[in-house]
Structure formats: structure tokens, C-alpha cells
């Protein structure tokens, strides 16, 4: 997939670029309004990560010009602005999603994947990963042809892992993805472990390979 990262903060831009950089992915970056405008008008991308506050102009204007030109690139706004109005404005203007800073790169990746999936599959709702098939609309999971019953959280977890395959995903990121802000109430992340254990068990019982690995007590990794 081809991604444009429009972000003025160098540290963040580089991290995102590095996280998305892998075989088959092309990442381009823009650090200010003019650079971003010239890139979006010249090329098309699967997904544009758009910061709102940019030197030289507003990300909102970039979004407006994209939509005026009937550009079909996916747009994910990454902004420090957290108010409902900002979100609504972004989404109303045609952004596909809105992610508030700070975020986990795995969360960003999951959102970008979801956007691209929606754009490229064009109505087909089937996500296939080796022997695992997921019907995104029905939220049903099959291993080969065996249907398995996952809880809501296990299903979300599986999608999250697949989007971040090959990456170490921290327990923090998983917990925040599944439980949102309330997660700081937990004494520890042991209950994440039980969800992962259940998911793994269900997948393997249906004949799938063991893709989920624990990574040095910090998180988990979903690998081929």
C-alpha cells in the first residue's frame, strides 16, 4: 500500500514511516502545507495520514481540496485536537477516520488497514490470512472451513493482530484498543492474557497455526 504521512513533527513522522515501511508498502512524507499540497495533487495514495496543524496552512484545507478534486484517497486525520467539533468537522469534510494524539503506532496501523480495506475491497467483506478467513460484515471467523465462535473482544483482538502482523504490539496498546480509557483501572494486564489465550486456543483447535507469540513480557506478536 502507498501511504502519505503529512506531519510536521519530525520524530513522529519518522516513527510512523518506519512502522509502516515494509515489503510492499511505499511511504512518502510531507512536513508542511506546500509540500503536502504538491504531493496530493500529483500522486494518489491508498491512505493519507493528515495532521491538522501544519506550518504554512491547515490540514483541513488540504482535506477540502482533496474532496473538491473528487480524490478517493483514504484520509486519516491525526490531530492533537480532541474536541467533538474537530472530529465532526474532519469527518463531515470526508475524512475516513480521526485519531487523537498521542496514539500507539499499532492503533494507527489498525485504523489505516481498516480504511484501505474498505477502499480496496470494494464491497467484498472477506479478509483472508492464510487459513483464517474473516467475514468483516458478519463478524464471523472461519479457519479453513470450520467456523469458530469468538467473543466481541477476541474478534477485535484478531483483527488488531492481523493489521499489525509482524510487529510487537504492547499490552498497553492492546488494552487501550479493547477497553479504551477505562483500562488504567486495572491492576495489571493479566486479563488481556486470558483473552489472548482463549483466542489462540480457539484458533488452534479449529486447525490454525499458532501465530500469536508473547514478546519479552511486553506484548505480543502475530507472525506468519
Amino acid at each position, binding site marked *: 500500500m502507498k501511504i502519505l504521512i503529512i506531519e510536521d*513533527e519530525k*520524530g*513522529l513522522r519518522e*516513527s*510512523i514511516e*518506519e*512502522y509502516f515501511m515494509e515489503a510492499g508498502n511505499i511511504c512518502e512524507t510531507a512536513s508542511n502545507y506546500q509540500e503536502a499540497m504538491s504531493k496530493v495533487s500529483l500522486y494518489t495514495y491508498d491512505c493519507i495520514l493528515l495532521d491538522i496543524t501544519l506550518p504554512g496552512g491547515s490540514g483541513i484545507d488540504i482535506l477540502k481540496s482533496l474532496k473538491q478534486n473528487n480524490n478517493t484517497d483514504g484520509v486519516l486525520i491525526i490531530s*492533537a485536537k*480532541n*474536541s*467533538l*467539533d474537530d472530529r465532526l468537522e474532519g469527518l463531515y469534510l470526508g475524512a475516513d477516520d480521526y485519531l487523537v*494524539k*498521542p*496514539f*500507539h*503506532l*499499532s492503533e494507527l496501523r489498525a485504523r489505516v488497514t481498516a480504511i484501505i480495506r474498505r477502499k480496496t475491497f470494494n464491497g467484498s467483506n472477506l479478509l483472508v490470512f492464510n487459513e483464517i478467513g474473516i467475514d468483516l460484515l458478519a463478524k464471523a471467523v472461519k479457519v479453513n472451513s470450520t467456523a469458530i465462535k469468538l467473543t466481541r*473482544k477476541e474478534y477485535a483482538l484478531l483483527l488488531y493482530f492481523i493489521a499489525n502482523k509482524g*510487529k*510487537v504490539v*504492547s*499490552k*498497553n*496498546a492492546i488494552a*487501550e484498543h479493547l*477497553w*479504551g*480509557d*477505562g483500562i*488504567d*483501572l*486495572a*491492576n495489571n494486564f*493479566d*486479563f488481556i492474557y486470558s*483473552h489472548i489465550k482463549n483466542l489462540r486456543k480457539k484458533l488452534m483447535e479449529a486447525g490454525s497455526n499458532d501465530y500469536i507469540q508473547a*514478546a*519479552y*513480557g*511486553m*506484548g505480543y506478536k502475530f507472525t506468519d
Partner: protein
Amino acid sequence: MKLFARYNRVNLLTTIIVMLITGIIYYRAISLILINQLEKDLVVEENEIFEYVGMNHQLPQVFKSNDQQITFTEAKPGTVTRQFINTIYRDYQNPKYAKRHHHVDDDDEFESGRGLITSVTVGNKYYKVLIVVSEVEAEDLIKIIFGITAGVILLLLITLYITNRLLLNRLWQPFYNLLKELRFFNIADSKDIPLEKTSIDEFEELNKVIINMSTRVKSDYKDLKTFTENASHELLTPIAVINSKLDTLIQTDSFSQKQSKLLNDLYSAVSKLTRLNQSLLLLVKIENRLLEGNDPINLKLHIQELIIQFEEIFLDKELIVTCELGEKELITSTYLVDILLNNLLSNAIRHNYKGGRINIKLTDESLVIQNTGENAPLQEEEIFIRFHKSTESEGSGLGLTISRQICENLKFTLNYSYDTSYHTFTVTF
């Protein structure tokens, strides 16, 4: 004591004292003038006697006149000195008149009088002459004058009292209006103190000064809030960088047990920092009333969803949750209500012990969330203060502040109470 009462008291008291003093002086002055007049009459009479004696060389015939008596008595030459005296006037002429004016209780008619003792020599005889005039008429005059004056004073006092009352009440009206405005003054409110129309310079100045002051206070407060908002906002970017670098770092290599422990600690510190920052921003927004809404909300449904959301955490802490949820519809901001519910429930979980209980009760009037926890009541006035938290609390110390502010915005009340080992938070709609 009200200003009016105090003013009236002082005013009336001084008026009465001044009037009394004036009355005494007035009385004295009139008495003096009248007595002076009587003495002049006496001197005229004396001169007439002298003239008569000078022309006729005999004493004039003494006859009784209306208000005058003259008596001649023989005396040794040179024993009489001329002087005015206060004496008694005996009224034979007009018993009726005298009866009304007598000064002693027996039937003799006596009146107070003014007399002149003088002497006259007729031939070789020396006479003492006593001329007495009645003071009754003068006294009557004084009484009338005094009565009228007293009446005027009384009338004046009453008028003063009434006008003061009416006038002061009316004059001070702008002041009372201003006082009312000040009582309802809210620093976070956008409503300004209105300029009261008044013709009194002092009140107008007071009003202007207060308006200036409130505007300044408000703008300072706004600056402070803007600063908080900007500071929090500026912090978000570096936090985002730290977070993303951590995410990148854990992709790099294999880590030892010790390193991964360090990384985990870093992660939780960063996420705590993030939440703290977001809470601050949220609080500023709520205080600025930037978050408003008119969404129909089924509170029961929201609470049920929240409980499902927290399910794993209840299990993790082995909490027993009892719900008694009635139907309650609200029309307000979903966002705020969700934050409120989330904060209150989070609080009940956070300050609970393993195996504790949480009771949630929703009625048409109120939402009550009870939780077990530390076996002592908390200080109600302290727990709603920013950054007030128990030493072992992992929270931001802003949750309850935000909750109370939300309740304030939504015109609810949030109260804390403690009874029979339950900490109870009550939202009254």
C-alpha cells in the same frame, strides 16, 4: 443595622436635639423681648406719674385698670431704690378671666406679674410707688408661639422620616441591584454585570469600577485557562513522539527481562501522562462550556453498556456489581454524560478492594453509585478539589473535579456521603 435605619436614627436624634436647643433659645428670646416690652410700659406709666406729680403737686388718683395696678405707700426718704421685680398681680377686675389663669389653687386670683418699684416726692412727703402689670398675656403669647413651634417641629420630623425612607430606598436601589448582580457573579460565566442606569454619580462610579474589575478578573481567568489549554496542547506532541518511539523501540531487538520491565514502566508512565493531559484539556473545555449538546439519552442503556465495557475489570478485581436501573431519559450532551458515568464508575472501581461491592441505582430523580472501600468517610469538600487524591490512588486526581463540573454544566448536583461502609455518590437530576 441597615444603612437607612442607622441614618434615620442619627438624623432624627440630631434633629430632635437641635430642635430642643433651638426651642429653649427661642423661648428665652421671646420671653426677654416680651418682658422688655412690659418694662417699657412700666416706665411709660412711671413717667406719667412723675409728670402728673410735677404738674399737680399731688399723687394721681389710683384707679384700677385692665392690666395695671399702682400703689403708693409712704416711706422714709431715700429708702427706695428703683428696680424691676417679679411679683404677683392680683386681678380684681375680671374674675372670669382670672379664674382661667390663676396660679394658685385657692380662690384668690393671682397672676404672675412684672413690677417696677420707684419713688416720688410730693411736697415734703416721700412715696414708694409700685406699678405692677400682668404677665398673663405675654405668657399666653409665648405658649401659642411655643405650641406652634412644637407642632412645626413634629411635622418636620415626620416628614423627614417619611421622605428619608422613601428617598433612601429609591436612591439606594441601584446599589441593591448591583449587590444582587455581585452575589450571582460567576467567574466562569460569560454573562457580564450590566451597567445600571442611575443619576447618582457615586453609584455610577461604583458600577463602573465593579464592571471593570469583573471584566479584568474574567479576562485573567480566561488567560489562565487558555494557558492551561495551550500548555496541555503543546505537551501532546512530545508525548505522541515518546509513545511512537517506544512503539518503534520494541520492534527492534530482543529484550532482557529487566529491559522489558523498564519499557513496561515507561509505557504506563506515558499513558498516565496522556490521560492527565487529556483530563486537563477536558476540564478546561467543560468549564468553558464548549461541550454542549441536545442528544436524547437513555441513561439506563448507557449504564448497561458501560458495565459490559468494564466487565473484565470487575472480574479482575472480583467486584460484585448490583444494578437497580429504572428508566431515565435525558436530553443533553452524550459526550458529557458518558464521561460523567465513566468517571463515577471508574472511581467506584479504583477505590474498591478485591472482592468489594458496587451498587448502582437509577431512578427518575437520581443516580446513586455506591462502593465499598476504605473504612472511613472522605471529606466531601476536599474530594472535588483538583489533584486532591489519596496517596495510593493511581488516578489523575481530576476525575471527581470533572464530574462535578459536568454536573454543574448540566444543572445536576453531585454529592458524596458515607454510611455503613459504603461510599456513596449521588447525582440528582
